[in-house]
């Protein structure tokens, strides 16, 4: 499957919120998770038509217990809150 990385300078440094979540491996369950942070500008497109994911770092809002310092966010669930 096509996987293409890229960088969007217009989004780099913008603050954003992600209405995230995913399925839970091995179960029928899924869960929602909210994040907020700063977009690095890095993105990855999966497949064709491209399914775009942005890397959100410097996280200021994470789910309880979240230990990673960044998260990949699906573009349709990403809300840029900083227009400057």
């Amino acid at each position: 499957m096509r996987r293409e990385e890229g960088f969007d300078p217009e989004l780099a440094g913008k603050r954003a919120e992600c209405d995230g979540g995913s399925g839970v491996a091995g179960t029928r369950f899924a869960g929602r998770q909210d994040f907020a942070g700063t977009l690095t500008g890095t993105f990855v497109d999966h497949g064709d038509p491209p399914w775009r994911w942005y890397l959100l770092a410097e996280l200021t809002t994470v789910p309880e217990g979240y230990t990673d310092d960044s998260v990949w966010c699906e573009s349709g669930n990403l809300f840029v809150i900083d227009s400057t």
Partner: protein
Amino acid sequence: MNKDPLRTKLCDMLGIEFPVIAFTHCKDVATSVINAGGFAVLGEAMHTPDEIAADVKWIRDRVNGKPFGIDLVLPASVPPSGSLDELMSNIPEPHRRFAREIKERYDVPDPKGAVDLHQWGGLNQELARAQLDVLLDERVPVIASGLGSPAFILDAAHERDILVFGLVGKARQAKRQLEAGVDAIIAQGYDAAGHTGAVGTFSIVAEVAAMARDTPIIAAGGVTTGRHLAASLCLGAAGVWTGTLWLACRESDVDMIIKERLLAATNEDTTYSRSISGMPMRVLSCPWTQEWAKPGAPEVLNAPYQMLLSSDYIQGANDNRRADLMTEAAGQGVGFVTTMKPAKQILYDLVEEALETFESIVGDS
């Protein structure tokens, strides 16, 4: 003006008789509902692309050209990945000890085989994308996204005459998806089984319906009676999305022990807990969820660590069919699910009660 309150624009869009969507993981339930005049969406999130293709054919062979849907849980966020060993090594010892104590206290048996979770690669972008490609290739009549935004797939789907539904838990998600051009929005409230947003069904449905214009809105979360159906239509929905309603029906492949628990449960027997997966979800209360809610319990870990921790309990309970330990995703409407009826009867009862409700609230003059 159409005088049948149940003849909605969702019925027209899908060519169905009743505006009732069964969300189910059981193919037999799906075909029963479809053939009785409703619509069904089969949850296939945890299936491989080949399994999905086989299930699509199975349904097609049994519904005589009637439409159906397939639901995938498109991920909306994915943490940087690690190997299973790396993930396991990150679980703190106090949490491991607490899980062992629960196991001892409730005499939880060991799983009969390797824990499924530990053999499965997880749902990442690549797998979800491969699942979606099967649905496009198969030209499934409806693709439903149970979590993430399906906006990126809209053009490819519409070129193939596939309708795309998106499930949302917040108004801003609905606004984004409406702007993208999804064909219907499932507005899911806090009452629902499994993963939900924090907004109640009564509020999220009305709010999303107000912004939707001509796009059908489908109410989800706690819908288990005809009164719920009638109320949903009055809120502006064009149909309802029902899950818990079908778990204990005759055709359902849910374990009989869980069916009995569902039939006995009241609407106070579900809990909104992070203790199973690390992500909030509504399930039938069980010793595992109860223990993690007690004062002094360790703080619940984030996904996937909490799921790695709970998987031994969950599978041990399921493999050994321990009614006192087992759990299942269930919505707050479970209290209305009290008898094990055929799916067709459940649908007809729902419709009849909705019509009676409309009749009962209309004045004489």
